[in-house]
């Protein structure tokens, strides 16, 4: 058939295997070419759906996504049990490690690092941990929470100096430092696609989040007794287990993805907007949280605020990644393969003709299973 949008002769299918456009959908609402109702990494979802796993774990097929979701829920249930049992120190530790450990399993599952796990994991997750240690120590030097904590006698209740440090200075410094490990990855030329940059950035951000949580709560961990009344620790644990790692991972992933786009010569308004969005989201998250805590707003509203910020960040990442995948997968050559999303055996270029998944977001094991091509005519992405 001839694609309605790129005019190439392509195998019959619901989606053009070269440009990913949704075929025969001229009467549908929305642009069939950009097909934002079919997110390129997981076509069963809309781009504007704030799903954590299909955004930050883009290489997983839909079966694996469910398994990771259940594993995450199991981890949260474990934290809840520890909280109810009054084992707060244990709950803090599990909260700090949960998302980074899940991501480590994901990196192994999708083999994103291909044949160089030590270098990639060392420079992303490990580098993120080192940067996290440095940044948290820097924070302790410049910010004394006792000095800026509001007191119940005060009229204003909020320290402007403290708010500027916690809500503006520290987020900007952190966002400048966190992508550095992924940026200096020595074999980055082997991972030229934006989805690789996103995953490496998320890994660095999660390493940062782990170090930040452990150092930040070290005083509490070394002073809490074995059993304490659970009280309202659940709010702190929720931030620590869910929103803080998702914020740090998403923001760094977005910035790293933008750097990867720049290296491909594709820096546009969408990408620059992504960096601005990451920094602004971090500022809004930190400043809003601090402001609400200092003005004694109900802790539930703090969590709702954090969830809203993380949700908005996830949607922008999907928007950025979706368009990057549509553009980059179009350069793949034909091969026989299995779609990791719908599991159809297909002969495809960059997109599954059945479900429209961008095949650059396939796990490494499936990419390796593509038929070898003649080197002299293969596209750069296929030579890897």
């Amino acid at each position, binding site marked *: 058939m001839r694609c309605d949008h790129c005019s190439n*002769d*392509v195998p*019959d*299918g619901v989606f053009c295997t070269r440009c990913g456009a949704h*075929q025969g959908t001229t009467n549908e609402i929305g642009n069939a070419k950009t097909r934002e109702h079919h997110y390129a990494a997981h076509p069963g979802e809309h781009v504007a759906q704030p799903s954590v796993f299909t955004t930050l774990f883009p290489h997983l097929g839909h079966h694996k996504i469910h*398994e990771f979701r*259940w*594993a*995450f829920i199991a*981890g949260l249930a474990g934290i809840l049990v*520890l909280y109810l049992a009054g*084992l707060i120190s*244990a*709950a803090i*530790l599990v909260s700090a*490690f949960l998302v980074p*450990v899940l991501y480590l*399993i994901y990196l*192994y599952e999708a083999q994103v690092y291909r044949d160089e796990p030590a270098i990639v994991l060392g420079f992303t997750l490990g580098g993120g941990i080192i940067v996290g240690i440095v940044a948290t120590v820097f*924070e302790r030097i410049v*910010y004394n*929470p*006792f*000095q*800026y*904590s*509001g*007191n119940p*006698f005060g*009229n204003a209740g909020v320290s402007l100096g403290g708010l500027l440090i916690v809500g503006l200075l520290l987020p900007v410094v952190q966002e400048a430092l966190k992508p550095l490990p992924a940026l200096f990855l020595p074999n980055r030329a082997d991972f030229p696609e934006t989805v690789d940059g996103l995953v490496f950035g998320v890994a660095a951000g999660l390493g940062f989040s782990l170090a*930040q*949580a452990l*150092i930040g709560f070290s*005083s*509490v*961990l070394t*002073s*809490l*007794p*074995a059993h304490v009344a659970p009280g*309202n*620790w659940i*709010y*702190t644990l929720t931030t620590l287990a869910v929103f803080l790692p998702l914020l740090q991972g998403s923001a760094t992933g977005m910035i790293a993805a933008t750097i990867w786009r720049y290296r491909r010569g594709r820096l546009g308004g969408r990408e620059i907007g992504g960096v601005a969005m990451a920094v602004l989201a971090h500022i809004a998250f*930190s400043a809003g949280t*601090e402001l609400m805590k*200092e003005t*004694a707003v109900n802790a539930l509203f703090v969590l709702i605020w954090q969830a809203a910020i993380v949700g908005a960040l996830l949607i922008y990442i999907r928007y950025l990644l979706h368009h990057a995948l549509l553009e980059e997968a179009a350069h793949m050559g034909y091969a*026989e393969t299995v779609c*990791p999303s*719908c*599991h159809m*055996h*297909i*002969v495809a270029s960059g997109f599954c003709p*059945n479900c429209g998944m961008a095949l650059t977001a396939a796990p490494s094991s*499936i990419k390796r*299973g593509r*038929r070898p091509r*003649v080197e002299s005519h293969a596209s750069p992405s296929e030579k890897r």
Partner: protein
Amino acid sequence: MLPRRRSGRLALTCARCGAQNPDGNQFCQACGTPLTAAAPQPAAPAWTAAPPQGPPSPPASTAPPLAYASPPPAPVAYASPYYSPTGAFPQAPVHRTPWVLILAAIFGLIVVMAGCGTAIALFNSGKASVTGTITSDVPSPTPAGSPSPVASPITPTGPTASDAGMTVPVPAGWVVDSNDNEEITLADPSGAGVITVASAASNPASTAEQQKNSVDQDFTSRYPDTKTCPNTKTTTGSLNGPQGIFWTLCFTLTSGSQSFPAAASMFVGVNADGSVFYGVILLTRQDNLQSFLTEAAPILKGIQWKLK
């Protein structure tokens, strides 16, 4: 449909779109049409049918919506309407890690971290204690419920900070963090704690107990795990004149990415008709409270209340 091999150049011309392909390719680089029709394996579909109207389901019973030029045999559970694998190029498995292992890793994390957390907490349990409360005879604590002796304020001789409601001595090294009409905040030289002294008219008139409840409520809203520190007592007495209540709260102070076990040793009092409020808060780490009380003793003794 058979591809034409051009003599001398080892190239294949696609029978469908006419594109030149390198020798060895089994699919056209331009349109994906199979170039290996002569192979003995089951043929791949010829791209001649209309596209299916939606994602087909994988079971074998599902009839492929496409018309195949050469329908493949069905040795496997289901046949893709898009392509029948030849078997010559085995596909890597889609799933690498069994779901049981993923869940086991998470349960292992919970068990290991629960063990580590409990071990750390047990190790800490012997040394975790908070002692000390502001009293009128600073810093030694007074028995619960017994009025403290009234101490006479000491007239400060060195530098002071002053506002409409009070004068507070500022010992060497201490820094005035803030000073407005109602409160003065001093930070100690090491940054380990702050002391806030406040005094203002109270409208409507209130009791010391009401002031204490208000302060407790504020702390509880701000620091969710706020509670009265173990090993401390709530007492009544006076601080340099005004009668009031002394007590100490423990909580976790989380700000930015830092989190500390903090303690606030406090005094709130009112004048005889409840129209003037007096308050003092010493805020520091729990393990530093006793030494901070000692360090702040000259300030507490030197506070001079102006509003009577």
